[in-house]
């Protein structure tokens, strides 16, 4: 029933549009017929108007022009009338009226459709130009045969203008003065007086004065006009004068657009109307000069897309005025809106046209699409707040972060229960009709996001909606999602981030992108064949043959969410589009281990976003999955085979996601490589993009300047560091990043390791590294060793470790010492490359024997080795493994490693344990982060002390209370727990009571941490109970007590109790 109804509705609407178009064509036919007189034309229009209206049978038309009036036979004054002024050169010269003679249901404007309003305005506009043209013609013909004195052609035109459009004459004259002035003609200065408010000849400068100036009378100006042109004649050729006049008259026609665009007060609706009018003028040859076009483009870009000069500079070369006409049709805005599309919207819009304009050079780009998108302008949020009287919320960002966090769920709730203004609802309803029942993604597009030079990625919400069911339900779902995205502006994470970045006072507005989700239905799920992110610069190179410029793609089956985020339990497929044949994973074991096992989808039955097992989906619906043969490979015994399109057996065969077909057999790598290169070149810097693919077409979803995380920003490499401070330097395969405050170095001496004779000893070194990995402070130490970390088989050539043995290091460094006449090939971390990528452990190769490389071997071999103190069992390996407590060795300093991939340079320095880290991007930023971290450890330590002070040692049988780890080391992050060792010597009952007592603390501290940071765990205290025996045996955590380095700190117990007693 419903579909039937909406189908009928659609057919009706189409019929109406057809009628309107037909009407417009007929009017144009009349206007273009040179044989017809004005009288004929006006009568003709009266005839053709009524059939274009919704109820032609009761429709009548009238045109009034100067003193003339034309009416259809039964025209009468009724309340149901649509009027539109006929304007010539800003002067109303007449009016077109269309009326219904009987009452009809009210729609947009009385009983008239809004399309009918557009229609009548368009017709009156065109009629205006026609009438102007006719007037000029008349004047021209009148003046035509004047034999006595041959006046120049420009004279005739000016004469003509004087009669028909004196205002235009004055405007043109003014332009001529400027033109002459710019051409350096001095005489023109005397004429400035006439056209400019105040002008001082002496200074040659305009001066503002406070008194009102006397406007010149029109007649005087007319006289001066001719004087100006006479003067021009002395200096310019007739042709030049004539060309200029032609140009200025043409430009003047688009004057209305200038008025609207340059006026910061004009609303989007006005701009939209002006653009549409402009668009309709085009068939009549509204030629604009390049500078004028440019100024229009820039004005439009500034109003709608971005006011950043960097953006405008690029955008004006690619976006045409008419491109905006299409765009405006998909913008939902409120009356008087001054909003913009926001960063994401602007970025995508620009990229789309950059790619479109580059198709001549690179035909592959022709296939690139962008998903259908509607936009809600950035001031929509303010409108929403105002409409629901929620003004108080604007001050939210200045509140305390824990208060913000506490109030956020409430704000979200309030927003979801607020309503949108009718005009927005109307717009959303239109958008839904346009989309149909396809799943949608509601993306934030704030002014802060995706700006040049700032990365504000992923801070605001993006929501998927299934968009199924009745129109009412779909509309409600859409509005809920928008409200939730709106609410995320006031969420604690973005506000905290803005505070850190010094952007809190930025006037933030939130645009919304309503975007069709690219994809196909597979069973009850909706998903793209595959999607992902791509970077034009590759910072994670797994082979020396891959250049930074070769780029990097992270790709997954299904929705791209799993490629955007770093995952802890799954992997995306990685490849470098510039070198697609050099794959990260080579052995079958690696390929299977690092293949994606899950996929994100939209469940169309339950209308929710889900993560499902890809294997199960393929077994059930493999045959329906788009382009599946390009995504998966068949895993047989010791063999991975690319399947053919036909004959895939999803029940029997074991499939793994490899994207082998896509990478080996299609244009995809070349296509995405071209996209990255074109965008990088035109946007003047590295970019990252999001994309999706439905099996047939490539869709660009987002494009922005490459964003850097906190640690992988390119470091500024200082050149004036004294040599003794440099521990090592590197100049090959250097990534970007800064690792500061390294407290410990684990150095496996390449020479000594090579000299180990016993296989068991070689294996023991790997195990020792694993033990150190568990003891040393997380992400505060670096691992350095010979050749290939993670070597299997011939482990003499690299320390045999698994990922779990190195998982806490901040960097993995491989040292390639020259051996006789060759330098061994390094692994680039390939044994666990993807684990390194997902946990952001930086890999760096060192070539100490290369020219110009620093390598202070003495630092590693000569510094005090604390291995034996840390793990007495391993003291026998002290020759091979050096564990250096940097602070102890250097008198309180730390090691800092600065890396810059563009310069291919990295240096490790001994530096003060200052928290200021210089980077190319922003000095304040990182400083702020560290300061934030300071807060995390400080209150943790306060509370640890507090707990100890409140603990009754007698009651619980406790002999000592220690704190260690990040709380003690002042490195705690928002997610860190508080590590505590309790030296216990009591009864089992006491132990139970103690743990219960501590659990109370743990839970309440966890809640406090949640309020501050948003991290929720099952308890913030990590309590390690050790006994007398453990301490004697130096077992497990007991070694921390009285340890040589990084020892646990004892805290006084029961102090508070005594006081209270």
């Amino acid at each position, binding site marked *: 029933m419903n579909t039937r109804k909406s189908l009928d509705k659609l057919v009706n609407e189409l019929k109406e549009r057809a009628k309107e178009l037909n009407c417009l064509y007929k009017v144009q036919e009349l206007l273009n017929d040179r044989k017809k007189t004005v009288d004929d034309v006006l009568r003709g229009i009266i005839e053709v108007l009524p059939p274009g209206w919704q109820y032609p049978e009761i429709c009548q038309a009238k045109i009034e022009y100067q003193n003339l009036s034309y009416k259809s036979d039964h025209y009468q004054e009724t309340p149901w009338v649509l009027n539109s002024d006929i304007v010539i050169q800003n002067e109303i010269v007449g009016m077109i009226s269309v009326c219904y003679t009987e009452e009809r249901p009210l729609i947009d404007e009385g009983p008239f459709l809004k399309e009918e309003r557009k229609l009548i305005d368009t017709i009156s506009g065109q009629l205006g130009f026609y009438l102007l043209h006719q007037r000029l013609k008349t004047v021209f013909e009148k003046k035509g045969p004047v034999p006595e004195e041959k006046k120049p052609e420009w004279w005739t035109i000016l004469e003509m203008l004087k009669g028909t459009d004196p205002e235009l004459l004055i405007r043109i004259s003014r332009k001529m003065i400027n033109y002459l002035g710019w051409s350096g003609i001095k005489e023109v200065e005397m004429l400035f007086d006439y056209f400019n408010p105040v002008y001082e000849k002496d200074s040659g400068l305009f001066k503002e004065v406070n008194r009102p100036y006397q406007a010149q009378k029109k007649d005087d100006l007319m006289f001066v006009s001719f004087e100006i042109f006479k003067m021009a004649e002395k200096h310019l050729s007739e042709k030049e004068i004539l060309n200029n006049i032609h140009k200025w008259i043409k430009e003047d026609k688009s004057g209305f657009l200038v008025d609207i665009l340059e006026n910061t007060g004009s609303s989007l609706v006005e701009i939209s109307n002006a653009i549409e009018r402009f668009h309709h003028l085009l068939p009549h040859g509204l030629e604009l000069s390049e500078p004028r076009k440019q100024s229009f483009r820039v004005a439009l870009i500034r109003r709608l897309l971005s006011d950043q000069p960097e953006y405008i500079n690029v955008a004006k070369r690619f976006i045409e005025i008419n491109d905006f006409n299409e765009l405006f049709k998909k913008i939902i805005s409120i009356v008087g809106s001054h909003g913009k599309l926001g960063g994401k919207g602007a970025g995508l819009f620009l990229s789309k046209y950059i790619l479109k304009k580059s198709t001549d050079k690179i035909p592959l780009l022709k296939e690139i699409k962008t998903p259908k998108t509607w936009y809600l302008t950035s001031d929509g949020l303010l409108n929403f707040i105002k409409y629901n009287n929620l003004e108080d919320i604007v001050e939210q960002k200045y509140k305390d972060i824990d208060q913000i966090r506490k109030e956020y769920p409430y704000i979200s709730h309030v927003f979801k229960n607020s309503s949108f203004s009718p005009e927005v609802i109307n717009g959303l309803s239109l958008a839904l009709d346009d989309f149909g029942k396809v799943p949608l993604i509601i993306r934030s597009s704030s002014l802060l996001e995706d700006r040049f030079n700032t990365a504000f990625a992923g801070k605001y919400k993006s929501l998927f909606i299934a968009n199924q069911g009745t129109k009412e339900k779909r509309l409600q779902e859409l509005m809920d999602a928008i409200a939730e995205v709106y609410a995320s502006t006031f969420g604690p994470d973005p506000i905290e981030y803005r505070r850190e970045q010094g952007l809190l006072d930025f006037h933030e507005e939130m645009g919304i992108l309503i975007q069709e989700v690219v994809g196909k239905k597979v069973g009850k799920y909706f998903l793209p064949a595959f999607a992902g992110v791509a970077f034009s610069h590759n910072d994670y190179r797994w082979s020396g043959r891959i250049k930074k410029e070769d780029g990097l793609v992270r790709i997954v089956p299904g929705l791209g969410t799993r490629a955007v985020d770093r995952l802890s339990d799954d992997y995306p497929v990685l490849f470098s589009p510039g070198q697609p044949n050099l794959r990260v994973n080579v052995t079958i074991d690696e390929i299977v281990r690092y293949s994606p096992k899950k996929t994100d989808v939209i469940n169309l039955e339950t209308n929710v976003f889900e993560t499902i097992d890809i294997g199960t989906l393929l077994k059930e619906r493999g045959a329906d999955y788009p382009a599946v043969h390009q995504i998966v490979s068949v895993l047989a015994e010791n063999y*991975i*085979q690319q399947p053919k399109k036909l004959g895939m057996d999803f029940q029997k065969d074991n499939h793994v996601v490899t994207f082998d077909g896509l990478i080996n057999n299609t244009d995809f790598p070349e296509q995405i490589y071209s996209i990255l290169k074109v965008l990088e070149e035109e946007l003047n810097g590295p970019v990252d993009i999001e994309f999706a693919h439905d099996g047939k077409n490539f869709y660009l979803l987002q494009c922005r300047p490459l964003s850097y995380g906190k640690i992988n920003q390119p470091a500024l490499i200082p050149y004036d560091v004294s040599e003794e401070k440099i521990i090592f330097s590197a100049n090959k395969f250097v990534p970007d990043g800064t690792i500061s405050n390294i407290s410990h170095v684990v150095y496996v001496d390449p020479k000594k390791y090579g000299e180990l004779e016993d296989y068991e000893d070689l294996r023991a070194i790997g195990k020792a590294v694993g033990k150190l990995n568990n003891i040393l402070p997380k992400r505060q130490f670096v691992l350095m060793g010979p050749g290939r970390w993670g070597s299997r*088989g011939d482990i003499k050539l690299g320390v045999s470790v698994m990922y779990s043995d190195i998982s806490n290091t901040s960097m993995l460094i491989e040292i390639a010492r020259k051996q006789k006449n060759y330098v061994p090939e390094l692994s680039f971390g390939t044994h666990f490359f993807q684990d390194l990528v997902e946990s952001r452990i930086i890999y760096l190769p060192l070539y100490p024997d290369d020219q110009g490389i620093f390598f202070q071997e003495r630092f590693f071999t000569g510094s005090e080795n604390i291995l034996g103190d840390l793990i007495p069992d391993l003291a026998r390996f002290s020759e091979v493994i050096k564990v250096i407590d940097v602070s102890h060795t250097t008198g309180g300093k730390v090691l800092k490693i600065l890396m810059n991939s563009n310069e291919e340079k990295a240096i490790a320095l001994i530096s003060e344990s200052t928290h200021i880290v210089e980077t190319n991007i922003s000095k304040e930023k990182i400083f702020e982060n560290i300061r934030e971290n300071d807060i995390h450890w400080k209150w943790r330590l306060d509370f640890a002390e507090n707990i100890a002070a409140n603990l009754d040692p007698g009651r619980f049988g406790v002999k000592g209370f220690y704190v260690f780890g990040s709380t003690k080391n002042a490195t705690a992050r928002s997610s860190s727990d508080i590590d505590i060792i309790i030296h216990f010597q009591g009864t089992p009952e006491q132990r139970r009571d103690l743990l219960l007592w501590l659990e109370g603390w743990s839970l309440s501290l966890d809640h406090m941490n949640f309020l501050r940071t948003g991290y929720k765990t099952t308890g913030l205290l990590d309590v390690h109970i050790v006994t007398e025996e453990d301490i004697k045996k130096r077992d497990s955590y007991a070694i921390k007590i009285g340890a040589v380095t990084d020892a646990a700190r004892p805290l006084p117990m029961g102090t508070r109790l005594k006081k209270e007693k």
Partner: protein
Amino acid sequence: MEKKTYNLFEAAQKQFDHAAELLELDGATRDFLRMPMREYHFTIPLHMDDGKVKIFRGFRVQHNDARGPAKGGIRFHPLETIDTVRALAMWMTWKTSVANIPLGGAKGGVICDPHHLSLGEQERLCRGWIRQVIKNVGPYSDVPAPDVMTNAQHMLWMLDEYEVITGERHPGFITGKPVGMGGSLGRREATGYGVIITVREALREMGIPPEDTTASVQGFGNVAKYAIELYQKMEGKVVCVSSWDENDQCSYSFQKKEGIDLNELSSISDSFGGIDKEKAADLGYAVLPGEAWLEQEVDILIPAALEDQITCENVDKISKRVKIIAEGANGPTTPEADEALNQKELFVIPDFLANAGGVVCSYFEQVQSNMNYFWEKDEVLGKLDAKMTSAYVAVSDFAKAHKLTMREAAYVISVNRVAQACRDRGWV
């Protein structure tokens, strides 16, 4: 004086010397077997994708082919050395010999890291390897197989190059091929089944019916799964398995006193044998620390995961009830722990013998390829049983007769067979 470094080949020679001592081999035989019979060193020019030419170094070492065509893998390894290849070739000789199959031992490789080569380059490298060495290898002289960083695809490229040059089809030139392209059925099961066949024979000798026994298994990969499958067919009860947890980066043991359900656990494990610990707990398994598999009150322990798992630190945690340790993995017991096990008089079926099912199946692949007739899986597994049983019985009898441990006996018997073949041929 330059310090000596650890050398795999020297270690292999030392091991051989020990066996030669026990066998009281004559000097010539010792000298002959301490070194490979033939070594080929060659360069392979490779046209890279970018148009440049790079030169790679390749090897093939044929340690001994007295008992039949040499057999051994081809490794792609960036830091390959000739001594490593020599040692591995020698071990192949002993491995085919202990399984008593008519093959010798070889190994080969290329110094390269496939992580830095495209598939096209790898294919050309494989073909280049064959071109350089084709005169010295073949289905009746030296039969390659996949090894470190090579797989069935590389074997097919190599086979194709060999067949293009000879102009004939010789599927028996190489093993490790996919089923349907000259591969054998039953390869997946072979190693795990082989382990249990040796266990079955050991139990038979001890006079214990398998259905009265329980076992605990380390690992849940291919070897472990098929070992469990066959053991359960014999009505033995597996009460505990351990597996590596990728998320937690540690292993867990899963215990069910009334016996684990193989299908149930398989359905909640990933392709690497990682068992989902939450789902396992839901199914009633006790989730215990990784090492718990070793401490179970069982009759049989089967380490079938990694090397160096039974060490002097945990060897004392093994229950007194344990009668047999069957080494499904390579080198799961450290030498010190092995010593301790000997003192406890625990019966250890050494890796060398216990996991020989794999090499026996490779041999079957070669046999089937040579006659171009391929057996059904039952036939393959039936023949595997016969081969493994007789291999076990030979070692066990030898151990008893000469009062050796099973590990020593396996090694000595294999050296002895090769030495005998050399003598029979009149070489030494």
